[in-house]
């Protein structure tokens, strides 16, 4: 029923820091989330792209040094596109994504608790349908656990560098326009 105590403690500490950061980053505020999709507030994009560039640089460096594995999820493109399209609508209606809904619930926002109830209901329904999906949509356009460097033959460092430069230029333009 339980994983080992050290792993439970590691999970609790990591989660505590994650929740603290999400709340201080204002992404547990549904005005901020909906504002991102209306292109009025770019907080979500700033948090995510910075996390991706900083996280990617460290994880690829640790991987090169033999300090970590990579955990690349399979590119089941049909399921990811359909699931992602449903997710986007849900995210606008609820105003949170799963992680930020938990954070908002922790802050005492009751709408987020109702959102968690809807999420749990969806998990129960999905568990009954999962075996069926694994015979059809999950197999359609499944390219396996591929990465952009693997697909293109271009080094991860070039991808991360280009992403960093692109994100920095975009945010610089954004901050100047708002100034």
């Amino acid at each position: 029923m339980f994983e080992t105590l050290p792993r439970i403690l590691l999970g609790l500490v990591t989660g505590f820091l994650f929740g603290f950061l999400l709340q201080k980053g204002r992404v547990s505020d549904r005005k901020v989330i909906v504002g991102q999709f209306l292109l009025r507030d770019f907080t979500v994009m700033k948090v995510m792209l910075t996390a991706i560039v900083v996280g990617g640089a460290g994880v690829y460096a640790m991987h090169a040094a033999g300090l970590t594995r990579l955990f690349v999820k399979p590119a089941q493109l049909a399921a990811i596109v359909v699931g992602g399209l449903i997710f986007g609508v849900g995210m606008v209606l609820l105003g949170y994504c799963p992680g930020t809904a938990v954070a908002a619930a922790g802050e005492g926002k009751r709408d987020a608790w109702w959102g968690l109830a809807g999420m749990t209901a969806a998990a129960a329904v999905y568990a009954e349908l999962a075996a069926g999906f694994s015979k059809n949509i999950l197999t359609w356009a499944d390219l396996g656990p591929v990465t952009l460097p693997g697909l293109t033959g271009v080094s991860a460092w070039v991808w991360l560098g280009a992403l960093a430069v692109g994100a920095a230029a975009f945010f610089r333009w954004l901050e100047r326009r708002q100034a």
Partner: protein
Amino acid sequence: MNVLAKKSWSPYAVGGLIGVLSWFAFWSSDHPLGVSSVMVRVVAVTENLFAADHVTATPYLAKLRPFFDWEFALVVGLLAGAFAAARLGRMEAPEKPAGSRIAEAVIGGFLLLFGARLAGGCTSGHGISGSLQLALSGWVFFLSIFASGMAAAFLFKNKERQ
């Protein structure tokens, strides 16, 4: 002023620190940050109380043993961390949602998690952890949620101008 008592931090600082937290999770726990499978764990634990045979017969639930794992603990910690951050920042008590908002939240939550499970991850597992590994799956998910999220926002939320 005490930085922990600030109402909010720079989104770039928060993003950078989430990136560093990802290093920590990969290195210390051999696990990327992710959230959306925990709702399935909650279902597995609950159904296990009164329909244990059904859980065993459903591979999607049975494969999650042990149910209380690192990711389950992550979500419990997340709840507490956000609570602590809001308290330290002296956030005002959130208002009570109206009935229509409750309905919207339940329906939105349902779509959100159904989509996440079909896609195999959420904004954390695919959007951050997947994208930072330059996984094709993560970036395709990222683009898909922005495509439908923008369409839904401009259709349903555009009248709520600030």
